[in-house]
């Protein structure tokens, strides 16, 4: 098992100085997600502007992988249409579940390619997905709320 392939410098950089950390106002929806088996927690806020992700901020307690993944995820989705963010998630998920056999697309995943090594540590895949699951949940709730406003 190659430690350096898991803990790439990009990951350690995001871990030490996470982007978009610290919960900010205004926001549409706040969610709190946990990995019950290990105790990692993330609180995440999403603000949408129509169908575009205007802002994501988070506060997380957890390991380097989960914190760095949440940081990278925020970079990847902010300013993008929700559908594009969701498509990026699918690419990231494919990479995580690929057991090291998936060639990451740097165009789409940017710093996220650094997580390719995580796929070889099955116990850590859920760490890399925690922030994503929080973002998807918060975004789905925000979209549903907007839909409700439109229909009202």
């Amino acid at each position, binding site marked *: 098992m190659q430690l350096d392939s898991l*803990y790439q410098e990009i990951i350690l950089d995001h871990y030490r100085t996470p982007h978009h950390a610290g919960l900010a106002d205004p926001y549409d929806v706040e969610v709190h997600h946990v990995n019950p088996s*290990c105790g990692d927690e993330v609180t995440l806020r999403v603000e949408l502007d129509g169908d575009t992700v205007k802002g994501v901020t988070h506060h997380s*307690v957890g390991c380097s992988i989960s914190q760095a993944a949440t940081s990278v995820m925020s970079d990847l989705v902010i300013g993008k249409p929700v559908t594009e963010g969701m498509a990026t998630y699918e690419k990231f998920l494919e990479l995580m579940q690929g057991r090291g056999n998936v060639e990451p697309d740097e165009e789409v995943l940017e710093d996220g390619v650094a997580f390719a090594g995580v796929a070889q540590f099955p116990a*850590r895949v859920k760490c890399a997905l925690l922030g994503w699951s929080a973002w998807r949940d918060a975004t789905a709730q925000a979209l549903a709320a907007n839909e409700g406003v439109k229909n009202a």
Partner: protein
Amino acid sequence: MTDARTFSSPLDLQSVRADFPILSRELASGFPLVYLDSANSSQKPRQVVQAIEDHYLIHNANVARAMHQLGAEATAAYEGGRDKVAAFIGATNRDEIVFTKNASEALNLAAHTLGAGLQPGDVVVISEMEHHSNIVPWQLACERTGATLKWFGVTEDGRLDLSNLDELLTEQTKVVALTWVSNALGTINPIADIAVKAKAVGATVVVDASQAVPQFPVDVSTLGVDILVFTGHKAVGPTGIGVLWGRYELLAELPPFLGGGEMIEVVRMTGSTYAPPPARFEAGTPPIAQAVGLGAALDYLSGIGMDKIAAHEHAIVEYALEGLKTVKGLKLLGPADAADHGGAISFELAGVHPHDVSTVLDTRGIAVRAGHHCARPVHERFGMQSSTRASFYLYTTPGEIDALVDGLEFVRSFFKVD
């Protein structure tokens, strides 16, 4: 490193380890396995696995209800497991031993059946250092009945805070449910002393002995408690079997827990009557091969000697505490000295999250546990979200402790912690 510090154990570690084939495994990159996760689940000696294999290959059938020769053999094997458990923990009556699927189910059985007698105004007392399995069942029992849940706190040095004992133990206190040895802190609690005080106010005393029974001699005939539970797989036995011991008079007056086959006397469509203990609490086909395996496990531990195992654990814990204290930035969670310290040590390493500690150790073949170890409240008590835990057993060597200490130094250098 080893020669710099002294270590003395009454066990012949080489011969003990020869009984556990898994301990000579090599892991990725050629590192030998250093298994420091026995508080999570212990490894199994060949003798236990063979007893289970013999049972399945030669004696297998259902128990009690099967009226043929194999049925009789399986029943004798299963009930033989009960006899061995009774003897191992000093129970004078074999009918006081109830088999469950694990310690969690045993604690749920206790909370459910004792809970049936609770009402608003009653108090159940637990502690802040309990495993979730000795917290949640009591929370549920209190929610069902309107009883109030209270708890002992934990002192700064990881001991049970008994300063408000008189406030917690009053005539309203109906149940006191405590862990004997904390799975997260390693603390050994003065269960017998607390039991005397709890009994004085008329409370029923339940003890979670999951980390105690594997580690030191236990004698329920002199302990002074009412119910004691433990699990097989932490005591070199198989998974899938737990034990609830209860004073017979108490068990005899408790209602059933799960309904089904074998726990009944007469079933009519209008209502049923129930079997006496232990059958009343063993609905359905029980863990038969597991009882055989547990019996073999307890035979194995007795053969080595629980007093020797306890002395070995103490020596290893003392050696480990000394070693861990040399690691810069390491903060112990729980008692820092080996007195009344069970075979688990949890700690925090400044600047590195426990999951990262455990992943890096794992690449060197060292298996530890990282997380809240199903004891989130006690981590919260110390302002921690999680910790790394190393836990030991009768096969743990000082060389493995040295590997852990060296591994932690490597973790610090890998993450560039100063």
